[in-house]
C-alpha cells in the first residue's frame, strides 16, 4: 500500500523536475546506448573479420611475418617484401595432398583499388564467411588476357558496368607515368557483395599481369614498347607470383604440409594457417577494441556519478518536503524508500531509453551499414551481455540511491518537525 503511494509520489516529483530529471535520464540512456553499440560493433567486426576467408588451409608467401602475409594476401593491405618463384609454386602444388590452389599476384592498382592477378580457380575455390563461394552479379570469369572481374564496391563506387575499359597503374600511385595505358582491360564480370576485401579488388588473369609488365624493367617502362596485341602473341607464362592459397584433401595433413613448405630448400617461404594468423591479428586489433570498451564504461561511470550529484543536490531542496511527509506520519524508512526508488527509476528509464535508441538507430541504419561497410547487423533480442549491462546499471542506480536515501533518513530523524530551509 505504502509502496504504491511512494512510487506515485516519486513519479509526480520527477515529473515536477522533468527538465533536470530528463537530462539525467538522457545522460544514462546515452551511455547505455554507447555500451550496447560498442558491443555490437565489437562482435560484428570480429565476426566480419573472421568471415574474410574460409576453407583455405594454408597461405604461402615469401618469408616475412605471418600477420604481414595475411594482411597483403587476404586484406589487400601493405605489400609483400618479396615474390615467390613460379617453379616453387608448381612444385608445391604438385603435392598429392593438395586439392586446389589459387595463385595471387599483387602490385598494380586502379584508382586506389588493388589489382589481383589470379586464375579462374579463384572463383571456383575461394570461400568466405561460412563456406560461401563467390557469386557473379553479372558477367563471368575472365577468359582472355585482358579481362577483368571487379568487386561489388568497385563497381558501385566507380559506376562501372560490363564492357567498361579500365587502365591499370603500376604500384599504388595513380600518376600518368605509372599508367599501363597502352593495355586497357575490359570488365567482363561483377561479383556479388561479400562484405570482405574481395569487394574492393579488381581480379585479372596472371597472363594479363604478365602482359602489363612485359615491357617494364625495374619499375619503369623500357624504351622499347610492346603493344597489347603484340604482347598476346608472346609467352605470358608468369615467372613470379606474390602468394598462393592452398586447399588440402585432408585437414590432418595441414601441419605436415606447413612444415614442409617452411623447410623448403630452394627458396625461403612462409606457410601460415589463416585461422591462427587471424587470431594473431585480432589480438593486435583487440587492444583498440578494449580501449573502446573502457571508454564506454568510463562514460557510464561518469553519468552515474552525475546521477548521484543530481540526487544529492535535489535532496537539500527536498528537506522541506520530507519534513511535511514526516508530519503526516511518513516513516523514516519510507523516506529512504522514496529517494532510493527515485534513483532506481533513473536507472530503469535510462536502460529503457538507451535500448529504444539503440534499436531505432539500428533499424534506421541497418541498410546504411550494409552499403557502407558491408556489415550486416542482425536485429536480435538482447543476449546475456546486454541483460548484464541493464542489470548492472539498474543495480548501481539502486545502490547510488542508498546514499541520498540514507542521508534523508538521518535528516528525517534529526530535523523533527522543524522545517530546514
Amino acid at each position, binding site marked *: 500500500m505504502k509502496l504504491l503511494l511512494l512510487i506515485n509520489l516519486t513519479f509526480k516529483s520527477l515529473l515536477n523536475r522533468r527538465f533536470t530529471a530528463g537530462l539525467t535520464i538522457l545522460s544514462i540512456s546515452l551511455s547505455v546506448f554507447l555500451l550496447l553499440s560498442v558491443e555490437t560493433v565489437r562482435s560484428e567486426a570480429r565476426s566480419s573479420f573472421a568471415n574474410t576467408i574460409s576453407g583455405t588451409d594454408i597461405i604461402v608467401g615469401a618469408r616475412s611475418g605471418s600477420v604481414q602475409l595475411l594482411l597483403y594476401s587476404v586484406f589487400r593491405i601493405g605489400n609483400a617484401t618479396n615474390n615467390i618463384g613460379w617453379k616453387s609454386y608448381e612444385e608445391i602444388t604438385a603435392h598429392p595432398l593438395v586439392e586446389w590452389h589459387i595463385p595471387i599476384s599483387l602490385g598494380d592498382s586502379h584508382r586506389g583499388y588493388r589489382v589481383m592477378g589470379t586464375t579462374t580457380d579463384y572463383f571456383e575455390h575461394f570461400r568466405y564467411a561460412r563456406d560461401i563461394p563467390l557469386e557473379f552479379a553479372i558477367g563471368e570469369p575472365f577468359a582472355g588476357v585482358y579481362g577483368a572481374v571487379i568487386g561489388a564496391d568497385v563497381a558501385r563506387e566507380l559506376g562501372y558496368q560490363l564492357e567498361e575499359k579500365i587502365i591499370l597503374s603500376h604500384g599504388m600511385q595513380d600518376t600518368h607515368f605509372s599508367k599501363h595505358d597502352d593495355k586497357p582491360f575490359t570488365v567482363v564480370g561483377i561479383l556479388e557483395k561479400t562484405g570482405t576485401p574481395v569487394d574492393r579488388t579488381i581480379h585479372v588473369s596472371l597472363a594479363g599481369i604478365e602482359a602489363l609488365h612485359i615491357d617494364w624493367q625495374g619499375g619503369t617502362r623500357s624504351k622499347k614498347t610492346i603493344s597489347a596485341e603484340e604482347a598476346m602473341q608472346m609467352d605470358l607464362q608468369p615467372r613470379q607470383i606474390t602468394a598462393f592459397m592452398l586447399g588440402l584433401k585432408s585437414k590432418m595433413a595441414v601441419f605436415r604440409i606447413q612444415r614442409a613448405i617452411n623447410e623448403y630448400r630452394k627458396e625461403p617461404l612462409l606457410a601460415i594457417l589463416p585461422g591462427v594468423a587471424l587470431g594473431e591479428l585480432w589480438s593486435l586489433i583487440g587492444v583498440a577494441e578494449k580501449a573502446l570498451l573502457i571508454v564506454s564504461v568510463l562514460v557510464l561511470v561518469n553519468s552515474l556519478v552525475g546521477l548521484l550529484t543530481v540526487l544529492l543536490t535535489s535532496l537539500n531542496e527536498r528537506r522541506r518536503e520530507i519534513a511535511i511527509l*514526516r508530519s503526516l506520519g511518513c516513516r*523514516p524508512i519510507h523516506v529512504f524508500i522514496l529517494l532510493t526508488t527515485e534513483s532506481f527509476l533513473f536507472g530503469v528509464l535510462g536502460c529503457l531509453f538507451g535500448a529504444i535508441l539503440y534499436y531505432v538507430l539500428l533499424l534506421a541504419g541497418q541498410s546504411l551499414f550494409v552499403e557502407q561497410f558491408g556489415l550486416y547487423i542482425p536485429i536480435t533480442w538482447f543476449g546475456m551481455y546486454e541483460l548484464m549491462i541493464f542489470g548492472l546499471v539498474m543495480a548501481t542506480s539502486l545502490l547510488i540511491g542508498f546514499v541520498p536515501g540514507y542521508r534523508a533518513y538521518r535528516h528525517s530523524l534529526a530535523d523533527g518537525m522543524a522545517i530546514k530551509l
Partner: protein
Amino acid sequence: MTENVLQISDLRFRWPNSQRDLLAISSLSVNRGEKVFIKGASGSGKTTLLSLVGGVHVPTAGEIRLLGKDITRLSLSRRDHFRADHIGYIFQLFNLIPYLSVLDNIVLSCRFSTTRAEKALRQSGSLEEEALRLLDHLELGDRQFLRQPVVNLSVGQQQRVATARALMGSPEFIIADEPTSALDSDVREKFLALLIQECELADSTLLFVSHDSYLEPAFERSLSLQSLNEAVSA
C-alpha cells in the same frame, strides 16, 4: 465531562551532544476540545516541544501521555503511526508539497492513516468530497480549485489548504507551529477564526504555538513557554 488528552509529567529534554536541558516541564495537561495558545520567543524550544508531543523526538526523561497512551514508550514506527492517526500538523510556511495538486495535498494525510481515511469517508462519502467540504468551510470551496497546482496559490490560500489537510479525518490533535506569522495582519485574524471554528466542529484539541501575543485573546487558555519551562538559561 473533561477528558484529559495530553498529560506531560516531569519532562526533560536535551540534545544528545548538549550540556544542559533545553526543556524541563514538570506538568502540563490539556483537556479534550481545549484551544491552547503557547507563547514563546523564537529559540525557546517551541518547535522541539511540538516534536516531542508529535512523537518525532523522545524526551530524555519523563512521560508524555497522548489520549491516555504514553508515547515515549512506543517504538519509532508505532509513534509514526500514532502521529498519522491522531495529529494534524500546520507549519509556519511551505506546508504543501509543490508537485502535488491541492486535492492530492489534502488527501495525503489520509494516505498515511487508514483511521483518518475511514473517518473522512464516514463524514462525506469520498475523500474528494470531504476535502471540498473542508475547503468550503475555509472559504476556498471551488471544485476547480482542487486540481490547481499549489504553486499558484497565495500564502494565505496555502495555509488554508494546509489547515484542510490537518483537519482531514478529524484527528484528535491539531498542532499549529506559527501558522499565521507569514500572513498579513488582516488575513491573520480571519485565518485564526476559521481554524478555531473548524477545530470546534471536528471536536479537535488545538495546540497553537506563536511568539505573537496579539493573537492570545482568541484562545480560551494561554500559556507561556517561558514560565512553563523550568530549564530556562540564565
